[in-house]
């Protein structure tokens, strides 16, 4: 018990690595920035990478800063919403802010990020409020409600944006960049807005960590201990809206939701603790942002947004396939391994039963007999025997040399290791049958199937316990001998 609470869960320890990150941000800001077009010159690949990695270029610094902040903010917010099953709310919100962007633009008549931020936040809130109103007053289901608000608001935004583009001042505005985003268009004030929203998100995740945890896991309980669940929910929406809006100009409407969902989903495959999940998610977001913009810097016509998303999707794919615990490949390998083990054990058992049928007078079994008992074809039987031989469970004797071609019967004899395993399996099988008939009152003809499965998974400990309960029996319900530990050690059954 001491071991557990003397080892405190690092509920805020994960924010320590963020300190260098924040310092780096400040340093990047302090350096002078030039509004150069990135990727404008035709240097070689190596020179370009050096230019990017050395961060000597002002515009490169801006891009790196922007994508870092975006990845960080979206990663943490994504962690919150994915664990609350709200992934598609992020998608809806990113579409619903569009009319707000248009209104903000109309209001300020420029691409001023503050007016747009306010307009977009209001529109996002209106969208979220509309969803909850639809949910409360109608029988429309969640997915339809999301789709309704998403497309309705989006269409409104499209109408307004197309209208603005046809007006005089709209043409040179670059307002259409909100649909697909363009990282080059980032201004210093955009970066400041991003930094502010990231700071707020960080504050929320550190200081309200336990409140967010309990409202996400069990909102009824949170309410019962007096937490203002609705208020916290709205705070979450607010910060989500901030991170969506600040990211819009980098990756555009559709791909923002990708940045929210993908890093968090990847992190949820990696860990089952909220603090670690948030940390991993933020880290993955930052990494995807930087690597994606690096790749796009290397090429000539490569758009940054889609590349960031694809890098992040690649992280996800790698995790999905290769993660040691939850990865599909390790799981498949281990299940295939156990399938093979079961197959080998069944072959060994059949060999034992053949030996038993001959009263253990001989030590060799013809493979044809084995095939008949296992009810499989000869080629299959040869394959199984070969796998026994490679695992050193048995050796084969063939009078005419080559095993598969000769007409002479191929004979199999078990090695001591094979004998031990065979005995263990038969012992497990028969003990379990006996246990089922004697203790669980099964009919003797009902127990075989069950024992066929159980025999491969019974541990030594359980077997001992069953033996004790049954007081070291010698014969199974069908009257056959149960090989004992002594038989295994001796190498033959007496």
């Amino acid at each position, binding site marked *: 018990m001491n071991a557990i609470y003397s080892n405190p869960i690092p509920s805020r320890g994960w924010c320590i690595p963020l300190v260098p990150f924040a310092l780096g941000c400040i340093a990047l800001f302090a350096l002078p920035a030039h509004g150069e077009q990135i990727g404008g010159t035709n240097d070689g690949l190596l020179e370009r990478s050096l230019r990017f990695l050395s961060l000597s270029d002002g515009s490169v610094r801006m891009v790196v800063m922007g994508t870092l902040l975006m990845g960080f903010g979206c990663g943490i917010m994504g962690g919150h919403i994915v664990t609350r099953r709200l992934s598609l709310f992020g998608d809806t919100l990113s579409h619903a802010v569009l009319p707000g962007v248009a209104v903000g633009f109309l209001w300020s008549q420029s691409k001023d990020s503050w007016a747009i931020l306010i307009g977009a936040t209001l529109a996002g809130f209106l969208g979220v409020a509309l969803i909850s109103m639809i949910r409360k007053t109608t029988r429309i289901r969640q997915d339809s409600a999301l789709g309704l608000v998403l497309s309705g608001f989006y269409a409104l935004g499209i109408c307004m944006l197309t209208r603005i583009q046809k007006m005089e001042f709209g043409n040179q505005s670059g307002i259409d960049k909100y649909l697909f985003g363009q990282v080059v268009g980032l201004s210093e004030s955009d970066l400041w807005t991003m930094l502010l929203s990231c700071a707020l998100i960080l504050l929320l995740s550190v200081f309200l960590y336990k409140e967010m945890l*309990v409202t996400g896991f069990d909102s009824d309980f949170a309410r*019962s201990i007096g937490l203002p669940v609705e208020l916290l929910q709205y705070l979450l929406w607010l910060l989500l809206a901030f991170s969506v809006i600040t990211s819009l100009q980098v990756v555009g409407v559709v791909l923002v939701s990708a940045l929210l969902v993908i890093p968090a989903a990847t992190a949820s495959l990696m860990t089952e603790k*909220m603090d670690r999940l948030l940390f991993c998610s933020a880290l993955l977001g930052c990494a995807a942002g930087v690597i994606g913009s690096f790749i796009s810097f290397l090429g000539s016509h490569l758009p940054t947004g889609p590349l960031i998303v694809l890098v992040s999707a690649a992280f996800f794919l790698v995790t999905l396939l290769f993660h040691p615990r939850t990865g599909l490949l390790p799981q498949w390998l281990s299940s295939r391994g156990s399938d093979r083990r079961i197959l080998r054990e069944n072959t060994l058992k059949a060999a034992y039963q053949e030996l038993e049928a001959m009263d253990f007078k001989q030590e060799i079994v013809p493979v044809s007999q084995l095939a008949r008992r296992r009810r499989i074809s000869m080629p299959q039987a040869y394959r199984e025997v070969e796998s026994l031989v490679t695992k050193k469970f048995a050796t084969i004797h063939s009078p005419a040399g080559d095993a598969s071609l000769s007409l002479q019967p191929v004979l199999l004899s078990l090695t001591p290791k094979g004998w031990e395993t065979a005995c263990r399996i038969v012992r497990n099988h028969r003990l379990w049958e006996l246990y089922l008939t004697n203790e669980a009152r099964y009919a003797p003809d009902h127990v075989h199937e069950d024992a066929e499965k159980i025999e491969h998974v019974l541990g030594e400990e359980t077997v001992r316990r069953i033996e004790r309960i049954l007081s070291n029996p010698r014969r199974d319900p069908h009257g056959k001998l149960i090989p004992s530990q002594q038989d295994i050690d001796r190498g033959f059954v007496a």
Partner: protein
Amino acid sequence: MTDTPSPLEIHDLTVSYQRKPVLYGIDLVVGEGSLVGVIGPNGAGKSTLIKSIMGMIPHNGGWVKIFGKPPGKSCSRVGYVPQRESVDWDFPVSVLDVVLMGRYNHAGWFRRVGKKDRRIACECLEKVNMLPFADRQIGKLSGGQQQRVFLARALAQESDLYLMDEPFAGVDAVTEKAIIEVLRELKSQGKSLVVVHHDLSTAREYFDQLVLLNMRLIAVGKVEDTFTRDLLQKTYGGRLTIFTEVADQSAGIREYDKERRSVSSME
């Protein structure tokens, strides 16, 4: 009235969900150190009663007082165990995290839980025999184990009044026994417990007071007085169908009114 206010006092509580009435005029007083079972058929409003006591569902009439104060003012003295279905079991929290949630109202806003809270949480886990699982993700436990964790969280709250919504639903016999033992121990410490229960066969043995509920209060009192054939018949039996039918009809009266008015205007 005595000097110390009773843990729970409900007067004329009326609740309706959207258009459908759920509870009518409930009067209830729960004394200190009592173990009260709430029983009734499906849809009788048992969970609604608990939730409206907690103030999670707004009520249309009447009032609730917890230790003489309205529900919102005495959160720290009430422990609530929600139904198991109301929680997202895939959420990335460990068993210990869940139990620590019981200490949150002791820790306060913006603060992290301290060493003392951690120790108390571990002790509570020990009480329900779940300490070996402390580091496991909450979804990877069986139903009975999850319910024990919930109980441990309620213990960690160190409240004076506990409201539990179906703590015995879907648990194995061993867990059921363990839970009832913990409940009795709490009771012996002078805490009050209100427990929603669905199994009539064990209700008599588990509780010392019963509330029979079917949209309205049928009976309340000691088990010997309330667990009678007559009252149970009244709670579960057919006599009340008329009552619910009338309630359903009253929901439809508006439509009927509208039709009648349009007919009369035509005349």
